[in-house]
Each structure stands twice: as structure tokens, then as C-alpha cells.
């Protein structure tokens, strides 16, 4: 029992340290963001797209729109691939080929994002350049790179969900004279709603938070949405300006402001995930 008490104390300490450190992270970001909001207001910077820190213009609209556009584009482009890979892996392949398929997808989940960025620079950007006659850098290329990057993650989650649909439901449908296709659309996919939404939210989080792969192909200019011209997102702008704006300058506070938005978005996504999980149970 003494061991119990000591162990419990040590574990409580580790837990408290974890919470304290990460609360500090949030506080540091929050403090910078607070200074920024006191100086520039909350709404103004969100509605302006003029980003020139040297002239004290801190409009982040272009980055917000850029993040949303790139993420949305990636999800739309990834969706057919995710559907195809997850249905194939869960409902077409069986036995050893199925296991091999899942292992290969898992390997791609672990491929570092900088490698996907490399692919973007070596394959996607030249391709867009040839097809459109532009430089090839921009949100379109970034969306393509992100799509390829989130396909394995999203597909694995979707695959595991589709695999868990009880075979009693499938047989119930087939037993009524439904074809395999009808069973897929009308029973298997609806029954997997919760898990698919979960995977969707994780994919949104990954796309929204990705920095390096996007930075390598988006071009890096503050411009409100043009798919084929260089743009920027919240994360890529953080990366570019981190070196230029030393801590405790107004410019650095603007970065904290953007970082806080990213943290809030992630909290919302995680909250939505917990709601979805509840949905599947109830």
C-alpha cells in the first residue's frame, strides 16, 4: 500500500508537469495574441489582407483564406482516393493481400511530410506549370500535395471503420436481394458514418496544421486566393516570418495571434471528434 501511495504521487507529478508545461505553451501564445489584440483589435486584422509588418499592417485574411482553401481543396481531391482505397482494403481484398495492403498504407502514413513536399516540387509543380503556363506555385499545388499526404491517414481510418461493419448487417441486406453495390451505398457506408467523420476530422486537422509540405509549393505571398498564383497559409507564414520577427516585437505578437487561431481550430476539431465518438456509442 505504501508503494501504491508513492507510485501515485510520482504519477500525479508527471501528470501535473505535463499539464503545467502545455498550459504554459498556451499562455505564452495567448499572451502574445493578447498584446496583438490590444494593439490592433480582434476583427480588423481578420478582415484585412494587407500584411506588411514593417509598416505595421497585420491583416491575416489572406492566410486564413489560404489555409481554408488549401485544406478544402485537399479534402475534395482526396475523397475519391480515400473511398476507393478504403472500400478496396476493407470489402474487396481478404486474407494475406488485405494485410499487405494495410501495411503498405501504414508505411505511407509514416512518410515524412517533407518527402511529400519534395514530391510536390519535383512532380506536382512542374505538372501544373506545364498545364497552366503559370509558375506552378500556389494553393492548387499545395492542395494536391496535401491531398496525396492525407490520403493514407484518412484511408486507414476509413478502412478500419468499414471493416468493423458487422457482417450480420451485410448479410441482412444481401438476404433481401440487395446487390453488393447497393449494400455498400445503403448499409455499409451509412453504418460507418461515425468512424468516417472521425477520419475526416483527423484529416482536416492534419491538412490545416501541415507546414513544410505546403510551404515548399505554395509560393509564399500574401494574396487573397488565387489558386494558381503564389499564396500563403497561417502555418507557412509562421514559418517564413518566425526568423524575421524577434520575440517581443509587434510582428512577433501577430505570429502568436495566428498561432492561437490554429490552436483554437484544433481544439474545435478535437471537440467535434469527441462528439462524433459519442454519436457512435449512443
Amino acid at each position, binding site marked *: 500500500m505504501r508503494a501504491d501511495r508513492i507510485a501515485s504521487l510520482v504519477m500525479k507529478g508527471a501528470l501535473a508537469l505535463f499539464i503545467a508545461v502545455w498550459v504554459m505553451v498556451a499562455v505564452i501564445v495567448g499572451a502574445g495574441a493578447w498584446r496583438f489584440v490590444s494593439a490592433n483589435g480582434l476583427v480588423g486584422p481578420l478582415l484585412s489582407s494587407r500584411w506588411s509588418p514593417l509598416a505595421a499592417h497585420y491583416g491575416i485574411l489572406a492566410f486564413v483564406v489560404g489555409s481554408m482553401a488549401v485544406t478544402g481543396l485537399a479534402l475534395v481531391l482526396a475523397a475519391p482516393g480515400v473511398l476507393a482505397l478504403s472500400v478496396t482494403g476493407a470489402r474487396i481484398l481478404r486474407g494475406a493481400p488485405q494485410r499487405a495492403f494495410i501495411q503498405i498504407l501504414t508505411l505511407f502514413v509514416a512518410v515524412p511530410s517533407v518527402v511529400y513536399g519534395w514530391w510536390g516540387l519535383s512532380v506536382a509543380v512542374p505538372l501544373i506549370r506545364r498545364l497552366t503556363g503559370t509558375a506552378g506555385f500556389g494553393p492548387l499545388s499545395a492542395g494536391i500535395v496535401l491531398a496525396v499526404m492525407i490520403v493514407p491517414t484518412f484511408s486507414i481510418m476509413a478502412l478500419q471503420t468499414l471493416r468493423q461493419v458487422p457482417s450480420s448487417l451485410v448479410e*441482412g*441486406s444481401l*438476404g*433481401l*436481394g440487395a446487390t453488393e453495390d447497393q449494400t455498400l451505398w*445503403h448499409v455499409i457506408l451509412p453504418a460507418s458514418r461515425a468512424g468516417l467523420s472521425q477520419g475526416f476530422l483527423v484529416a482536416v486537422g492534419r491538412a490545416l496544421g501541415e507546414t513544410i509540405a505546403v510551404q515548399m509549393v505554395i509560393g509564399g505571398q500574401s494574396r487573397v486566393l488565387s489558386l494558381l498564383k503564389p499564396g500563403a497559409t497561417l502555418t507557412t507564414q509562421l514559418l517564413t516570418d518566425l526568423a524575421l520577427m524577434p520575440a517581443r516585437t509587434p510582428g512577433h505578437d501577430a505570429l502568436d495571434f495566428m498561432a492561437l487561431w490554429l490552436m483554437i481550430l484544433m481544439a474545435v476539431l478535437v471537440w467535434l471528434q469527441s462528439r462524433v465518438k459519442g454519436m457512435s456509442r449512443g
Partner: protein
Amino acid sequence: MAPDIEVDSLDVWYGQARALKEVTLHLGPGRVLALIGPSGCGKSTFLRVLNRMIDRSPQVRVKGAVRVGAFEVLAGDVDVTALRRTVGMVFQQPNPFPMTIFDNVAYGPRIAGLRQMAKLRQTVEDSLKKAALWDEVRGKLRRSAMSLSGGQQQRLCIARALAVNPQVLLLDEPTASLDPVSTAKIEELIVQFKTHYTMVIVTHNLQQAARVSDAVAFFEHGRLVEMGPTHDIFTAPRERRTEEFLTGRFD
């Protein structure tokens, strides 16, 4: 009209494991056949052959012929969806779809192409009435099927099967997971359905087989040991193995 079922020296293999050996039997139209026998004796395999649900198992090989009414069940070109619409199935665990009660019953007709709401509504109501569930769920058709009790769920699954106008019903231990009251209701339905549907029921409950069936088939190790009228099987089985199984002196 309810069809008859004719099985002629049926063999089924899973890979190299033989699940059924030279099963031959005939079941007249509108009759109820109970399949009994120890676990793994092949009765579920036999049931799953009748609506080709066995297709879902990998590496199945067959020999012999199975006819359900006009369907040559094992023919290469049989219309499986039409066969399954004719031969309905009710499973061991109630398996309502995670949708509303209405959508569950309307599932089959919709899949078959019925779109008119008025007709759908009529079909759903008729089917629920036939399954003796209508009085309990009227006015709650928009609720999730998951909100029903286990016994109600099983009757919903029966209604769902009836909604596509089957002529044969396969019941795979339909009361195995239910309490005695729900079991009695399902048995009552089976007795009512006699002559309207040809039925094959797998059951571990010998009293149930005695109560609901016209004929009993006893399977062991994939062989049909004995089949005969229910009364005869239970009072004077011809085979020693059947008698040992019925009296519990079975190893």
C-alpha cells in the same frame, strides 16, 4: 404460391473440408422443416446454400443440385438477387439496420426499385402487421430501430424479410438470443405463416422444433442422418444416433 424445395446429393466443401455429404431431401410447398443436430453438423451451411448466402464464404465447392421452386440454386447463371428476394432469411442475432423502423422495413422494396411513397407506406404497414409488430410501433415509425427491445427487433427483421414478398423463409436459430416471452411470439408467427411460406428453421431447441415444424431433419458430421414427419422423429426415430441425440445421450 409457396414453392417446394428439392435437394439432390448435395456436397459442400470449404476448401478441402467437407461440410455436407450427399444430402438428399424434399420439402413440400408450405411445409416447415426443422434442422437439428450438434454444433458444426452442417445445418447452417445447408440453410445458407438455399439462398446462396454461402457465396460469402471463401473457396466453396459444391456438387449435386438444389432446386427451390423454379430456381436452380447452384446453376452458374442463377439470378441471385431474385433468388434472395424469393427466399427470405432471418438471422440468429436480430440485425436491424441502424436506421428508422420505417426505413428498415422499406429497405427491401426500395432496393427493388419501389419509389412511390404511398405504396411503400402500405407495404411497411402490411409487413409490420404480419409480423405482429404494428400495434407496438405505430406512430413511432420514425424512431431508430435500435430503440426496440431484442424481441421487437427480431420481429422487425421478420417484417423486413416479408416486405419483399418472399415465398420461402429461412430462419437461422431465430430465437437463440431472445427471452421466453419473445420466443413464444416468434413461434406463434411461424405457426401462423404455415402454408403461406415454405420454411426451414435451424434450432437448438428441440421443444421448439416439436412445436413449430411439420418435418424434422437430423444432421451429423455433414450427413443427413434421418428426416421424417416431426411426430415420428420425436416418438419413434429410425436411427440410433437420432434417438441418442433426442434423449441427450450424445457424446
